[in-house]
């Protein structure tokens, strides 16, 4: 037995040393979650408008166009459950918060991050924002939540080239993208829609309604106005999504918003004012689109535009 333990320990030792080094090195690299958590903690008292949500707000709403001090705390694939978590956790640090802006996308009610291929993202909420729910062991380490080559690359980029992992502007707006813009949206629309369709499950509706109501209740209690919206999407995407999910999503949004006098909702999903050259891909806007959308959103919701 001793011989076996000695041998196996000897074999595993270099691997453990490598992963320990990698873990510590990765944790030191500044990233969006660290940055946004710190911002909300230290500069939260200046924020008047908080943007939550997924990529449909991260790279759609530019805080620089808002007259009031605005911070974008959205993250890629951030579901309603995590929007609620962020708001609940940091609301004490946001004494001047007047408005919350939150997208209700096609999949918002039907997707659960812990049940998706992007579930590894939960580690960022756990490690850098103090999210506690769920499995006690999973998502506690950087090294177990991502590919080793990509992690090594990130370490080398940071320590050798000084390149960090912050992909947002000073006020939280998403500025760097991991994927290139789609060149053939006529073809990719169906592919993306089908992928999104397969990630949607009716069994996740209850949890997401609970989270959305949590956000709305919290805002109501603190006299905060909530602006909900459904982001625009390219026609090839719209034509291939599951109409049942979409119909249900609209019905749920209508029924929930009708219960809250402090909530306004706008639907841009099929809005033809968004032209082809405003899209980065079939369900995301590019820089031009984001500028157009932000200004339109501010105008239609009566929020002051910064001149």
């Amino acid at each position, binding site marked *: *037995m001793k011989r076996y333990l000695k041998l196996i320990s000897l*074999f595993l030792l270099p691997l453990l040393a490598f992963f320990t080094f990698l873990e510590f090195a990765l944790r030191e690299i500044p990233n969006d979650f660290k940055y946004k958590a710190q911002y909300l903690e230290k500069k939260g008292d200046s924020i008047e408008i908080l943007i939550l949500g997924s990529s449909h707000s991260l790279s759609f709403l530019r805080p620089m166009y808002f007259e009031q001090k605005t911070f974008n705390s959205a993250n890629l694939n951030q579901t309603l459950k995590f929007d609620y978590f962020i708001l609940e956790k940091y609301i004490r640090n946001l004494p001047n918060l007047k408005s919350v802006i939150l997208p209700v996308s096609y999949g918002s009610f039907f997707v659960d991050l812990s049940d998706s291929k992007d579930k590894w993202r939960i580690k960022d909420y756990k490690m850098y924002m103090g999210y506690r729910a769920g499995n006690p062991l999973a998502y506690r380490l950087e090294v177990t939540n991502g590919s080793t080559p990509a992690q090594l690359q990130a370490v080398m980029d940071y320590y050798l080239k000084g390149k960090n992992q912050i992909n947002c502007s000073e006020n939280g707006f998403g500025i760097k993208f991991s994927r290139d813009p789609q060149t053939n949206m006529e073809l990719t629309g169906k592919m993306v829609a089908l992928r999104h369709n*397969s990630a949607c499950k009716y069994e996740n509706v209850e949890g997401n309604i609970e989270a959305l109501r949590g956000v709305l209740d919290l805002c109501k209690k603190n006299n905060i106005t909530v602006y909900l919206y459904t982001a625009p999407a390219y026609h090839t995407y719209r034509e291939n999504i599951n109409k049942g999910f979409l119909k249900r999503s609209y019905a749920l949004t209508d029924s929930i918003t009708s219960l809250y006098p402090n909530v306004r909702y706008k639907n841009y999903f099929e809005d033809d004012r968004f032209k082809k050259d405003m899209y980065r891909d079939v369900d995301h806007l590019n820089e031009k689109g984001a500028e157009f959308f932000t200004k339109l959103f501010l105008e239609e919701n009566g929020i002051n535009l910064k001149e």
Partner: protein
Amino acid sequence: MLFNSIEFAVFLPVVFILYWFVFNRNLRLQNFFLVVVSYLFYGWWDWRFLFMMAFTTIIDYWVGIGLKRTDDEKRRKLLLYTSVVLNLGLLGFFKYYNFFVDSFVGAFRLFGKELNVDTLNIILPVGISFYTFQTMSYAIDIYRRKMDATEDVIAFFSFVSFFPQLVAGPIERASNLLPQFYVKRHFDYHKAIDGSRQILWGLFKKIVIADNCAVYVSDIFNHNLEYNGSAHLIGAILFTIQIYGDFSGYSDIAIGSARLFGFNLMQNFAYPFFSRNMPELWKRWHISLTTWFQDYVFFPLGGSRGNTWFRVRNTFILFFISGLWHGANYTYIIWGLMFAVYLLPYLLFPRKINMTKVAAEGKLFPSLKELGQMSLTFLQVVLVTIFFRVATLHDGLVYLGSIFSSSLFEVPDVLPEKMFALIGIMIVAEWLQRSRQHALEFDGFNIPRALRWTIYYAIVAIILFMGGSQQDFIYFQF
């Protein structure tokens, strides 16, 4: 708890240390410890499933005791039926209820009658098909007086819930595994080392082969219309290899883990892609299930005895049930029946097949004839396995139609060279070791430690740097 998760990487060494250093003085205590950790392992998915497994275990334990204590044939039959009906009832409800309701409604619709029967939102307990078959075979074997019922309730609970093979097999026979819980286990250095190697090889097959194949397979199968015939063929080949890497990888990790605790589980895959014909393939693929069906379905039906019609009928029944076991969908049934069709020539024109135990036994390379036989068998498997992946029969036929179109001879739209190189590593390693239990079984070879460790570290490096993103084990859904 998944074998390729951080939880299991913590769980396994902790259980190993406690098992050998804390609970090793008392056999019953050690077995009880195994039950507790196995329930923890299983409950990690969903603790509610534990009650069902405990219920099945208690019923079959009680049936076993009942069978032991009576010689009254009527009472014995009643006890056996209790076990079979309860086990199959649970399996049927959780796995097939919605399938049968949908089929029933569909059949009535064909005759113009609309039935309004709701399906239920049933969550399928992980590995239910595996442990119900294992407990059921226990009751059947006692009924057939092939083994004695155990009075040791802790040993029986350990046998049913033994975590290495609980959720995806190998489906062990009570006659092999249960007696191992009666005797004190002694730590065997060579067994533990070999078990560790087998775990490493299993991880390679799962993380490097299966998880990487999964990416291409999902892409090709999900975007059916955008690829040409040759790409579809590549998709089908990769899916066949994905299933093998996934399931045989799981089996290797299971068998290797069990060996760390002093247990021997049966071999579940014996290099099926080196089979030279269909009968040989079924002796090498998912051996624990194939032999289970043979013993408890095929032989009771009469097996290969009787006339040709009888043999054909029994074979088709066997593969029909085997298909249904894999999933509640017509695609699985077609998958099973197509294998039965492949076996037809061997049933209609039976002849003694003179074959060595493994292909090219004692040689480095196969003969051209053997290579042709292996390739043909593999290709047959590939074409059938399409039905294992698609959602509907129609999708399967469309996919097959695309393969057998003129675009089969075009340059493939997808040509994953890196993937083929990784598959090549697996095939070469398994070919060289085809007479052994697994590809890293080095006992008897005089390989210097430095070289062996270089091989292990090379495999670890490939897993770390070329492994795919984590995917669930395919067979968990069964």
